[in-house]
């Protein structure tokens, strides 16, 4: 397969596109991924304890760091790319993200709305 143009070789999800077996190039990708992931993890753990971020903005910062780190993992560890061979992989991932957003966003929205419209209940009523 090594004589083929890399563009012509199909890749499975998780496969990285190599024209030859390049140990060094692959290792560099994983090292970049690890460095970025460590950086983003450290930022996540550091964000709540620092006074630099405005209090109510901290959850937003944490979510941004988490989504960025998931992107880093997808690109550098799972090798999801924008290449033509990854179209199906990316399409399936996009559909998964849609379902996840619907489930989580929809649940939170509906339950918040119900809480809002509930009659105020004291602890005495809450007891079984």
């Amino acid at each position, binding site marked *: *397969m090594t004589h*083929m143009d890399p563009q*012509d070789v*199909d*890749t*499975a*999800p*998780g*496969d990285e596109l*190599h024209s030859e*077996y390049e*140990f060094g190039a*692959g*290792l560099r990708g*994983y090292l970049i*991924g*690890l460095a970025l*992931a*460590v950086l983003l*993890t450290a930022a*996540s*753990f550091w*964000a*709540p304890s620092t006074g630099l971020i405005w209090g109510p903005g*901290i*959850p937003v910062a*944490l*979510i941004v*760091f*988490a989504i960025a*780190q*998931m992107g880093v*993992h*997808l690109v550098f*560890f*799972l090798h999801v790319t924008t290449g*033509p*061979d990854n179209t*199906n*992989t990316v399409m*399936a*991932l996009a*559909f*998964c993200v849609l*379902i*996840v957003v619907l*489930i*989580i966003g*929809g*649940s*939170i929205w509906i*339950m918040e709305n119900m809480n809002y419209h509930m009659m105020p209940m004291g*602890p005495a009523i809450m007891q079984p």
Partner: protein
Amino acid sequence: MTSAEFTAPHPRDPYHVGHGHGAHAHAPGHGEGGPADKRIVVGYGFWIFLLSDIVMFSAFFAAFAVLERGTAGGPTGADLFDMTNVAIETGCLLISSFTCGLASLAMEARRPLWFHLSMLVTFLFGVAFILLEIHEFAGMIAEGAGPTRSAFLSAFFTLVGCHGLHVTCGLLWLLTMMAQVFAKGFRPHVMRRFLCFSLFWHALDIIWVALFTVVYLMGAMT
């Protein structure tokens, strides 16, 4: 694939269905040359499974988000979570994900020694993660903050425990892969299984990123 094969009066199995020939034929993925390489079919099927697994986790995340404030007068996340422990767990899983990547590089380069070494390190960090999690769970249950204490703790133990269960299964799978590579070498079907394993292991780390952010970091703030 020559055109003569297609125009033959009675082509015998023109698409080589089920022969997994992709490694030898020129299959550029444009619908020519028959079905895709088995490695691609297997990898893609497993990718779909992983995405469905993520959808399942999203339901547990939704349950946790909804029930987080339902502490029933019991301890909250801020009372229970030990962030140092969570940071060490995160580091363990991240390093094991990295060494799993090294193992797949070693497999591509056909280096058994490096493969087994990387897998061993992956296994050790994975075990460290699981032991820390069990230690945390045992400590919480001993404090009377078990899954039956409140809706918040039920959702917590379901979500985090489900991830821990996945990691435990992944560790068993990891040992199986080491044994298969040791016994059979880098055969195509063993390499396909390892491709699926590495996808699984990296996906678990992605779920953990969401988990430590939503459950621990955001839970400890309130």
